[in-house]
């Protein structure tokens, strides 16, 4: 079953991240890289993606005169998606375990960030194969 692991944050949170020391950033990235490697070796890795700054984000609401109606406002406090992982695992518990690993990735001083990761199951394109 495929799951998406969503990592969200606020602008304040991201600014804080950017103020980490290079060493702390490198250590953090090294842990995420090793999670990705582990998932590839176990045959569970589907994708991982970081998303660009919300400054480049637009919200589109319908069309007017054939043109998209866009809006680029992202309040400071609004949570936005930072990135995600997609995994293909045998059980929901395994998806939570992977999320926990990512959540445990260290921040400044080696303290786990303990980031809250939303875990959502993909809807299937085909029929259920329960029979």
């Amino acid at each position: 079953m495929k799951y998406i692991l969503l990592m969200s944050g606020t602008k304040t949170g991201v600014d804080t991240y950017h103020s980490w020391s290079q060493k702390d950033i490198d250590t953090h990235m090294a842990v995420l890289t090793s999670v990705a490697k582990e998932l590839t070796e176990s045959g569970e890795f589907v994708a991982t993606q970081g998303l660009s700054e919300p400054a480049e984000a637009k919200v589109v609401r319908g069309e007017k005169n054939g043109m998209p109606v866009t809006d680029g406002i992202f309040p400071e406090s609004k949570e936005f998606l930072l990135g995600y992982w997609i995994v293909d695992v045998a059980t929901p518990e395994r998806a939570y375990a992977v999320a926990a690993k990512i959540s445990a990735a260290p921040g400044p001083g080696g303290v786990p960030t303990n980031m809250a990761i939303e875990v959502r199951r993909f809807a299937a394109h085909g029929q259920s194969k329960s029979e």
Partner: protein
Amino acid sequence: MKYILMMNTMRAGHGVPRWPQKDLQAHIAFMMNLNQGLRESGELVSAEGLSFPEQAKLVRAGKDGVPITDGVFPESKEFLAGFWIIDVDSPERAYAIAAKASAAPGPGGAPLNMPIEVRPVMNAPPPEML
């Protein structure tokens, strides 16, 4: 360039639409045709729907890395209902596709104008696997 188009419209407890049959069929057909068109133009990388918020879990690392899972979210939280990843030639094309998706017909055939968040996807390759 790759973009992610996110439909953030789900709310916990709101469930499946209760529209008249023909409006429902029109909506489903619209989405199928949109996706088919993107497949044929080679712009669709993936299109996924997510299961309902009732099944969503928030996970944090607990002691010794054991997951702490929680199914409680703030009342006002909007959930991701689904997303498209497209590969297009310009941001304008990405917004145009989002606009089309956003204007999908709802009850009475009127465009829903759902808010769709459009974000560039970073082009960095995935982490090196040994």
